[in-house]
């Protein structure tokens, strides 16, 4: 797997983010599923009790990749799953995030 994709995947795992970003890159759900399982196998993430959490090892790897790829503040640009935080997300409603939720 490409370092960039791996980085994005770890970022998604850390933030409970949207894997559709990977689908938009052209991966199938099957491939994404295999990627996730690989991360669990390498102990970069752990799946138990219906929860999927990134491990210390995973975070460390993510930070290493960030340095290698020379991403410094790019994390701030990728949002976690904000829509999950919104109740009654109707089409006509506009979600206004708090100031401290906005990227720098």
């Amino acid at each position, binding site marked *: 797997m490409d370092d960039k994709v791996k980085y994005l995947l770890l970022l998604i795992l850390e933030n409970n983010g949207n894997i559709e970003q990977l689908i938009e890159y052209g991966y199938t*759900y099957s491939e994404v599923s295999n990627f996730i399982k690989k991360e669990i196998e390498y102990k970069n993430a752990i799946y138990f009790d219906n929860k999927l959490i990134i491990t210390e090892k995973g975070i460390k790897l993510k930070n290493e990749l960030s340095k290698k790829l020379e991403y410094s503040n790019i994390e701030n640009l990728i949002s976690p799953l904000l829509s999950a935080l919104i109740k009654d997300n109707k089409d006509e409603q506009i979600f206004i995030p708090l100031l401290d939720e906005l990227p720098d």
Partner: protein
Amino acid sequence: MAKKNVTTALDVLKTDEIFDKKGWKRKENDKISLYNNYLNRLSLLPPDTRDLFFELTDNFENITYDDIIQKIKDSYNTIDRNYIDSYRKIYFMPLIEQIPIYKNESRFKLLNLLHKLLGTDKKTYKERPQRKSGEILLSLFEIEYRELYGSEKFVFPDSYSKFKSQFSKKDLIVLVDDYVGTGDTAKDVLNFYLKHEKFNKKNIVILTIAAQHHGISRINKEFGVEIISNIKQGKYLIDNFFDSILTKKREQITTMCETLKIKSDYFGYGNSEALICILNKSPNNTFPVFWYETKQYPAPFPRRKVYKEFNRN
């Protein structure tokens, strides 16, 4: 339909667990596989309804080409052998209303013209739509029936008129279909057959792969005809839950359907609450969250293929 697809890594893992449990295959790199369509559908549903979607999936019966013949044989094998012994011949016909077409018969030309003038020609010319699933199933059954009990008595007539002339009161007619839900189709077909004095409730049975309890009892009550089926399903929500839990689950189904912009029958045709798909085709009794689709958003268990190429953007 909602535009944004949202899927978490946890959703993918839960989907994998359910696919493993059900023995459904994940085809790698296949964009219109069941797995992809399933996750695509899941990605459109509001997050707080997804657990119910998984729960419904867990109870879903997906019958594929691989096991269809075995399933219909399983249903046949539940018939009492003495019952089979008591008939001279066993005729198999699809559970379809047989509608005569008069088009090419000259003696009807004048009559047709009269009908046309009177505006009553619709009935005369009503033709059946393409191949029905009952016919497809019957032709598969016809290939592999020999080891079944009483198979030496089996007859598979080519046409209804031929069958009608051969049939005697000592014979049994088995009407075959893949599925009986509310029993509406079965009712129409039985009304058609029972019009003729040759047929009565004692020499007709309906053989299906799967049927719903309410359809079975309705047909039995109204006609005294038995529906033979190895897979019997109820109405999932009403049969399993009550009070506040039932209300909550029903509300979640409504939310799902509204999100997908489904217009009617949120709980399946006639509120059947069915969870079944046979030969890649869900009956309309199944919850529409599983089969409703548009060109852009394919369904995991469609009713018919409305899209040729599935394109996400």
